[in-house]
């Protein structure tokens, strides 16, 4: 699947051009061998590059225009998808899709951010920036799942909640806050896959789960690196350093205890092989769903609470420098 190459993939680009040039010439056994060997080299180099990505390069991969998105996974992993629209309050937000579908023959609810690929789609999807009605639609559909004891699968891929006037007017903060509270109490299994950009509150607002899985090259951050650089370094161009400092990569998130597992991606990233990427997500989802479905509701809710309760623990993120109770 030829996709646009990122800047740091230039060495692969050189080889791909050579292969292309050779392919134009009349075929000989020797040329075929050269092409094969060039392909293998390109593959090796791709593997090396992707094994050593910097945090900022991972941001670029996570934002790659060809990276498989929620609807790509819906198409490949689920059957009988019926999209359910609207928050029954104000509108249907196209930046979040939600619906009923079958996963391995069992009914589930699927929800996810949707960024859009071509210009027209991007505008239709508001570049994946959800408004309050997106979060309210998501919760409405989750309650639908809860009512009928169906699991919920969520895909996370958003730069942020939409920072526009209407978002504030209609209470985007309240919409996210309410989801955080209510998702912690939904009785059914909730599986979250961070598949692209986990953009702060805009991501978290639908990302409370029994298992939070993160694809190898996805990122999850409290603020976009550019925004952090602009505020703390007063220079948005320091985004590379900010990306490093914020610890936004999947290995960082796992080490910090903020996600449950990393879903590996095919060599060269999910955009390089949709089917292989889907198979890896499938495997992780199946395992997680099996584990979480076996639990009683009470156990599941307690474990979900405890999981988030432990994020930022004594010793790891803070210490107590004095004993309790200093009275006024």
């Amino acid at each position: 699947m030829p996709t646009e190459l990122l800047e740091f993939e230039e060495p692969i680009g050189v080889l791909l051009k050579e292969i292309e040039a050779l392919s134009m010439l009349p075929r000989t056994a020797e040329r075929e061998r050269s092409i094969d060997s060039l392909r293998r080299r390109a593959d090796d180099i791709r593997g090396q590059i992707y094994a050593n990505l910097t945090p900022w390069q991972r941001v670029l991969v996570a934002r790659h225009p060809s990276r498989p998105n929620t609807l790509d996974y819906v198409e490949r992993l689920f059957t009988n998808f019926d999209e359910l629209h609207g928050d029954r309050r104000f509108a249907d937000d196209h930046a979040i899709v939600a619906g009923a579908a079958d996963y391995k023959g069992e009914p589930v609810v699927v929800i996810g951010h949707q960024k859009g690929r071509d210009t027209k789609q991007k505008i239709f999807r508001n570049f994946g920036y959800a408004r309050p009605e997106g979060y309210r639609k998501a919760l409405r559909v989750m309650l639908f799942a809860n009512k009928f004891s169906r699991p919920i699968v969520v895909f996370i891929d958003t730069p942020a909640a939409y920072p526009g006037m209407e978002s504030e007017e209609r209470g985007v903060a309240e919409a996210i806050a309410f989801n955080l509270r209510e998702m912690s109490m939904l009785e059914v299994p909730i599986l979250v896959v961070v598949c692209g950009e986990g953009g702060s509150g805009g991501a978290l607002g639908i990302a409370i789960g029994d298992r939070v899985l993160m694809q190898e090259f996805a990122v999850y951050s409290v603020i976009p690196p550019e925004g952090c650089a602009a505020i703390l370094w007063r220079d948005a161009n320091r985004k590379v350093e900010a990306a490093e400092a914020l610890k936004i990569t999947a290995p960082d998130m796992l080490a910090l205890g903020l996600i449950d597992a990393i879903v590996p991606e095919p060599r060269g990233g999910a955009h390089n092989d949709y089917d292989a990427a889907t198979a890896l997500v499938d495997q992780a989802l199946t395992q997680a769903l099996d584990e979480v479905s076996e639990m009683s509701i009470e156990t599941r809710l307690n474990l979900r609470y405890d999981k988030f309760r432990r994020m930022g623990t004594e010793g790891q993120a803070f210490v107590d420098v004095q004993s309790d109770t200093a009275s006024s």
Partner: protein
Amino acid sequence: MAWFKKVRKPIEPPADKASRVPEGLWVKCPSCAQILYNKDLTASLNVCPKCAHHFRINATDRLRMLFDGEWQEHDAGLTSTDPLHFHDTKPYRDRLETSINATGLQEAIICATGRLHGTEVSLAALEYGFIGGTLNAAVGEKITRAIERALDRQLPVIIVSCSGGARMQEGALSLMQMAKVSAALARLDRARLPYISVLTDPTTGGVTASFAMLGDVNIAEPKALIGFAGPRVIEQTIRQKLPEGFQRSEFLLEHGMLDLVIDRREMKDAIGRLLRFGMVRRTSAAAPVDADAVPRPTPETVPPVS
């Protein structure tokens, strides 16, 4: 959509002289220019007696204003370990040090229990003078413990927000505190214990998008800046100036996001009335009774658990 470009927001909010209570004998009100005697201003809870401008107050003054008398502080020693070893133009450790020295607090919040019009409450007040009152792992932990303490002891919760949102220097650890605190509030909600959220100037970002908006009753002080995205970020998105009063308390009230906008001088009484509403079910239906006057079961009178 590079809405983050050209943000010129300084790291620590500029010593916002307009809103802070200045030292000295005389103070000029930034809103009406009235010259005020500092002691008079303190007596009116740092609200201008002439025009009702609300000066920003610190967390300790907030506790003093809401509690009947003494209070017991909890988890005062919790302090950040700089878990990401964060370093921007200067080390995060230095910023912490500066804030600890400036405020006398170990973190950007005070959590305490005490009585408000006779009702024992679990109260948390964010301290804006400590890295903009931002939410990090320690602050999230302290709030969560304050809520869990309330659950254990069947107390109402009051959180007074004054915050720039999640603290960047602790990355996604800060972000996840929104989930952690909100989950604790879900348990409080299901236990039917009252939670009153008090929003003061400013309350933005991840704090608004979690506990500040989850009160059974959300009360704001007048003209407080309350929002999710910062005004500058929104202006960059829409490429125009925001109208006067956008994201102020009165705007949120008009848009249905707040129950009440209340003058600081009326705040304690209003909270007291709402607590009585929220707690009446578990005490007697009659007038409030001093808890100490209620006979407690002695060990002998407690029926054995079967």
